[in-house]
């Protein structure tokens, strides 16, 4: 090893760390302090201990937000992975126009989810939406339901629109993983008499673990902190039924409950942390096999 003297290179991580400290670590610490106060954003803050956390678990709206956020994630994250992997398996072969198809499928993911929500709203609006008119022209207007008005159906619409939008992104990561699997492994498995299902189970899946890990973790984080698409598609309605935790945080902050909203953010942090750590541990154990 060459001797390394202290020089500018020693301190090259400091600018990034300074920026990160000011705009991330400091607010994170400050938020923990704020969550223990009744601060309304203007007046003097008083220390209230864990009252904000107790109030959260006694508020029906907040508990419903947890239910909505979890339901959305339980619907979105697995479906996104299944659909994304399905797309990737379809696309992982020598076919014409593959680049074009990949581009088209990825396209929705680059558009703002807020705009996407508005577009789907234009499509699905009861009585005037595009889909209603297509069905009406076919004489099947009765098939159309007022989907964004009920809780169950609007949750379904939110999940499906989210999956529709981000399936391409999940697909691309699976595709990159699939292309890294050497073809000889499939040949060898074939020689050993493995069926195509067996090859998928014992060759494809184990070697896809790095892609699965990235996709599962990012989809869990993304769907548990969903904001834009709910704002534009349902606005959290009907009532507050489809409001998610991230929207609740914003509304509480604007509603002069600054201290309380930071407490909600800390609760949300743990709601995200637990499934992320579990899925990371599971994919790590599998990778060892």
């Amino acid at each position, binding site marked *: 090893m*060459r001797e390394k003297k202290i020089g*500018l*290179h*020693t*301190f*090259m991580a400091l*600018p*990034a760390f300074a*920026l*990160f400290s000011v705009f*991330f*670590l400091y*607010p*994170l610490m400050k*938020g923990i302090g*704020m969550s223990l106060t009744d601060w309304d*954003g203007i007046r003097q803050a008083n220390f209230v201990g864990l009252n904000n956390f107790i109030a959260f678990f006694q508020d029906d709206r907040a508990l419903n937000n947890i239910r909505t956020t979890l339901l959305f994630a339980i619907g979105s994250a697995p479906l996104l992975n299944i659909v994304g992997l399905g797309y990737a398996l*379809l696309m992982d*072969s020598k*076919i014409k126009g593959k680049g074009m*198809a*990949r*581009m088209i*499928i*990825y*396209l929705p993911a*680059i*558009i*703002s*989810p*807020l*705009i*996407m929500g*508005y*577009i*789907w709203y*234009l499509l699905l609006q009861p009585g*005037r939406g*595009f889909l209603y*008119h297509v069905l009406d022209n076919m004489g099947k207007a009765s098939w159309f339901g007022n989907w964004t008005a009920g809780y169950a159906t609007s949750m379904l619409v939110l999940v499906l629109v989210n999956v529709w939008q981000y399936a391409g992104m999940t697909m691309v*990561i699976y595709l*990159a*993983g699939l*292309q890294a699997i050497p073809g000889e492994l499939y040949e060898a498995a074939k020689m050993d008499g493995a069926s195509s299902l067996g090859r998928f189970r014992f060759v494809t899946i184990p070697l896809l673990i790095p892609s699965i890990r*990235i996709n599962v973790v990012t989809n869990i*984080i993304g769907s548990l*902190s969903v*904001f*834009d698409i709910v*704002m*534009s598609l349902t606005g959290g309605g009907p009532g507050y039924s489809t409001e998610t935790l*991230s929207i609740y*945080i*914003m509304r509480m*902050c604007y509603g002069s409950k600054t201290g309380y909203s930071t407490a909600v*953010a*800390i609760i*949300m*942090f743990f709601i*995200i942390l637990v499934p992320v750590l579990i899925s990371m541990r599971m994919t790590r154990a599998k990778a060892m096999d």
Partner: protein
Amino acid sequence: MRRAASLFRYLCITLICILCLIPFLVLLILSLNTPKRVFYEGNIFIPDFYFYNYIEGWFKSNICTAMINSALITIMALCVIILLGAMAAYTIARFNYRFNKLIFGILISCMMIPGIINTVPLYTLMIDLKAINTLWGMALVCATNALPQSVFVFHGFIRSLPKELEESAIMDGCSWFSSFWRIIFPLLKPSVSAIVILNGFGIWNNYSQAVFFLQDRRKHNVPQALSVYFQQFAGAKWNLMAATAVIAIVPVILAFLLFQKNLIKGLTDGALKG
């Protein structure tokens, strides 16, 4: 049998592509209808080709200012992410200092925290820094959110580069710091394009934090300008809403077409191997 399977594959992919494109086509059709045509008389798939919607949408909404704002925020944030991220990743990848390890550990564990979690305390900090309603403030917030991932991607890439690259320069008396800028930084192109694609669109489209930090109408970014413009119609004037949405989407699609060749390569080289 094999032919049938490949035909089935083509059919599936075509259907998926159509499914992905339908909302865009509907948006385009809506944007070209006259204001009077609220209900779709005649053939709903043939619009009126009424381009005046675009002119009205452009001048009545805030979309022009918003696109400039979004572009400036995105460019500033990406510069910060790339310069600071590459510098940090270099020293972490090459030198085993204890505080380098510590910084890397902190950054990686914060990668799992979405920005919305500390937005409220950040909001009070931004007021103290007089960074509310400024483009640079928003750019720094967006850059900070993306910093851990970019250090991670650059770190993976730099570690795959042989050390001999700089060592001959060091022998000739060049410092590690300047050999980074002269030798390593120009080699980071694949990672840079992965980072630009992974974060650029997200920063351009940022809504959940723009709602807090860019409240002044003149500082609105694209999603905000559209949501304000859409809310004032309360479900009417769809043709105008659609035309404005098309205006907002066009630059994003153009940028995507420009970078999409690097997207898959950038993702494969940068994100997966990193």
